[in-house]
């Protein structure tokens, strides 16, 4: 009787652990899919970041800024006598 009882317990335990294995495996697959999706998002963001940096580099080229300042905004280098040198009291 004792032996049968033990057998039942062991069989049940095996069943439970088998189901747990299935469960965990399933969970890990789900997580893996999630991880892939996140990695994809990360890569897309990296691509965008790189492109934005390059875009900034292109828009902010010194030659372009200078051209815009001179031609569009009509900025000029001040004459020496138009400059006031300000001395900091500190």
């Amino acid at each position: 009787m004792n032996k049968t009882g033990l057998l039942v317990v062991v069989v049940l335990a095996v069943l439970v652990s088998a189901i747990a294995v299935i469960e965990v495996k399933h969970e890990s697959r789900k997580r893996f899919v999630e991880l892939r999706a996140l990695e994809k998002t990360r890569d897309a963001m990296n691509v965008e970041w790189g492109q934005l940096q390059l875009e900034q580099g292109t828009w902010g080229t010194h030659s372009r800024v200078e051209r815009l300042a001179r031609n569009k905004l009509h900025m000029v280098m001040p004459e020496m006598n138009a400059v006031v040198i300000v001395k900091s009291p500190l």
Partner: protein
Amino acid sequence: MQTSQSPLSLQHAYRGRRRWVLGVLAVAGLTLIWRAVDLQVLDKAFLQSQGNARFLRLVSEPAHRGMITDRHGEPLAISTPVDSVWANPQELIESRESWRKLEKLLGMKSRSLERLLANKRDKEFVYLKRRVSPDVAARIMALKVPGVALAPEYKRFYPAGEVAAHVVGFTNVDDKGQEGMELVFDDRLKSIAGKSWVIKDRYGRVVENVERVSDPQPGEDIALSIDRRLQYLAYRELKAAVKNNRADSGSVVIVDVHTGEILAMVNQPAYNPNNRYRLKSGDLRNRAVTDVFEPGSTIKPFTVAAALETGKYNAHTAVDVRPGYLKVGRKIIRDFRDYGVIDVSTIIQKSSNVGASKLALSISPKHLWNTFASVGLGTDSGSGFPGEPSGLLTDFGAWRDIQRATVSYGYGLSVTALQLARAYAALATDGRPLPSSFVPRDLAQAAELSTYYQPVLSKKSLLSVRGMLETVVKKQGSGTRAAVPGYRIAGKTGTVKKFGGGGYVEDSYLALFAGIAPASDPRLAMVVIINEPRGEKYYGGAVAAPVFSRIMAGALRMMDIPPDSLPITVKQAVLDMQSIKQSKMPDRRVAMLGEAP
């Protein structure tokens, strides 16, 4: 008569059948068990490896190469992720109908794909195109051609383009540094791709991560001592000057005299590192570091400093340079014209070869050599730039009178632009030549480095020579066009006859200007070289000095270096903090830009 079989005989008859059935079942069962054992135990290793070979793949995850920035963190080289298109020829060869579309999208010549596939028929991997733009990659994947896939990679971009090309250098298609700082710091910049085992399905999709062997390690970011603003300014001015003077080439170097940092280094001709298809090998050279030349008159301040150091001379000692030439041995040293009896300071101001020779011949060759060597002439600058030659300064033991004389005005020794800038930086400080550096260095590090050098020139001589150099850009000087309004400039012109084909070439010159600013408290040293100007004018004071003036004016302003020689007409004011707090911001703003080229 009814025949009836006894149960016993029936039993007997079925027993045979039962045994037979049981026997068959037992054999079947045993066969299955044997097969199971065979697969699971005996052949396990073989089968497992076969299975893995079909589905388990070692994939690498690329990491990005470190960024190169200027001293303020402005990017000079960035890696951004892009895709490379690759194919499995064995699969792609089947879908002939999509070849044309692929060729079009990838910009390949028609039928080139056919040839490529024919060559690689027995391979499983071939790159169709490395590093395509993201939208091309998306359109290729939209075609859904079997056997075509993308591999992530990084592409290197150089936002500063040709402006910083020689200093920064570039990488090859495998992301390895080839030139410049990309090569010098390759070990620190380079990334290590991560590796992991994954299970892929029949379509090449990753279905399970089995094990990560190593994490991807991105490269280290490196800041250079270059200032992108100065770099651009110097580049723009040099390019204009080389073009206007129809010169062959040119270089500009700006160094911080207190730290030895290189703030800007530009050359002409240059190239665009983002597009190197039409590259000529001469364009690649960072001439400011790799090309040696005879420094000519720009060396005279050191000759004069050596003379002052002996105590035999001061700035006002008279030297007779009549009649405008001097015979040494069989050679005649000439001046531009006869300057008469002049003082030592005027030798510098007028750039008298006869005067410099007379000074050199009156002091010991050893002392002259020591002075030159003490400011770093004849050695490399310590910059660590690939391919930097050490300058040439022959041993004084072999100098005869003619060598002593010619070396005093810069012939018979050779330097690079960077080495000359370093010597001027030494002249601008305490006579110690700090090694040049492409990476930022603070004053404490500089102070420690300077303890390795033994100055030969005293503070007094250095100050006196700097004073003489100021007269060069003043009225009557040879370099008046190097002047910068508001600042005291100390500098020296140079016009060097080029050596080639066994002698000095007529009408082939190097126009030089080397200088220091502001002279009252030096911060920057700069060297401008224009190689073979073919305009009407070819001498340093006319060709190189204006470039010096324009770049130095911008550099001093950008570096926030206060003017040290303001005309009285310039208004000065003292900030009154109280009134600023109460008033609004002034609505008149003044643009701060360099002079128009």
